[in-house]
């Protein structure tokens, strides 16, 4: 997944010869699968068409990172995958169980890397095996998350958080960065799913057919611990400070602060690329297997 980020206010982008041009810079199409822009860039609708025709998705981020918009090609492809996805909804418990089991394991491992060795998930894993309802799986996940975040926030410098997970809106800098990076990665997963022909709105663990892309949220579960670890690293190294956040209606990363951590996010996406490729291949395999059983 090649990402081009042009996070600059009040610029006009133009397209010439299969490349984006702005000021004195040129980015050929071959360098991007996804183009990230802030909401104060100008791009002509005909150029949006050109980009999406080349299968380049455009992700627009608002000033305070509290809203996102994704534009992709409207071309439908791989109808067989979408159909297989639909048919496998009958077996959604198995897939939901997979996402949460992996989530629990990866979160436990992440805590261990940071010296927290006393988290035992044997009981939860046993409960997961026997769970027959999505609500029960979500319940197990919820109770684990409380335990996890308690330990997670203990590892972080005290001045950056209130000791618990908060979202919509985030109440402290750690939660602000976590939510922001979750949202960005969720969109990257969506672009990846679309490129393979999946229907991102049809999920297993998260309720399908709601306004959000439930399948992207399902897959995001597998990557949250890696994102949390990257967030931890930002605050341990003081890459961001309290001045990089605004407190208007919740705590959000400011535009200036956002620019400081683009390279960390890019590095994270790069590190996670093989795992994301694997997980999508694995998902395809699981869906096909459930279809063969039907």
């Amino acid at each position, binding site marked *: 997944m090649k990402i081009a980020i042009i996070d600059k206010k009040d610029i006009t982008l133009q397209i010439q010869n299969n490349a984006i041009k702005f000021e004195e810079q040129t980015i050929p199409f071959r360098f991007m699968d996804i183009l990230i822009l802030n909401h104060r860039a100008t791009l002509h609708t005909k150029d949006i068409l050109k980009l999406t025709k080349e299968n380049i998705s455009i992700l627009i981020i608002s000033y305070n990172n509290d809203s996102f918009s994704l534009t992709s090609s409207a071309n439908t492809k791989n109808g067989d995958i979408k159909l297989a996805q639909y048919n496998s909804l009958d077996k959604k418990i198995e897939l939901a169980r997979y996402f949460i089991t992996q989530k629990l394991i990866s979160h436990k491992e992440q805590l261990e890397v940071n010296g927290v060795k006393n988290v035992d998930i044997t009981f939860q894993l046993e409960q997961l095996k026997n769970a027959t309802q999505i609500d029960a799986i979500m319940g197990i996940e919820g109770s684990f998350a409380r335990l996890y975040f308690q330990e997670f926030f203990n590892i972080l410098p005290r001045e950056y958080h209130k000791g618990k997970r908060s979202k919509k809106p985030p109440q402290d800098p750690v939660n602000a960065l976590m939510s922001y990076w979750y949202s960005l990665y969720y969109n990257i997963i969506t672009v990846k799913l679309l490129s393979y022909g999946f229907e991102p709105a049809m999920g297993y663990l998260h309720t399908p057919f709601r306004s959000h892309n439930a399948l992207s949220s399902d897959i995001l579960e597998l990557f949250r611990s890696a994102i949390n670890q990257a967030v931890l690293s930002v605050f341990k190294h003081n890459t961001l400070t309290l001045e990089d956040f605004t407190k208007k209606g919740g705590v959000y990363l400011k535009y200036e602060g956002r620019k400081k951590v683009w*390279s960390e996010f890019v590095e994270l996406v790069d590190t996670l690329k093989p795992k994301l490729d694997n997980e999508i291949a694995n998902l395809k395999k699981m869906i096909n297997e459930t279809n063969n059983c039907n």
Partner: protein
Amino acid sequence: MQNFLIIYDIFDKKRLPKIKKIAYSYALGGQKSALEAPLDKSLMTSLIKELEDILEDEDKVNIVKVANKTILLGKAKQVAFEKNGVIIL
């Protein structure tokens, strides 16, 4: 991904725009016939292949690896890219 300079000198006027078009499709910046391009192995292979399909013996294309810290004078700006082709501004 590393930064390279693509420098070309094309003998025939008909081939020149074709070579130019290819070179620009790999470049993030530069000037006239000296272009800065971040390339990895696969990009390098495809660039060479595309060029070789058009180049004749009398033409010349140099692809030169650029040091991480180059000397920039005048209004020149370092072309921005990260190792996987990401541009950050």
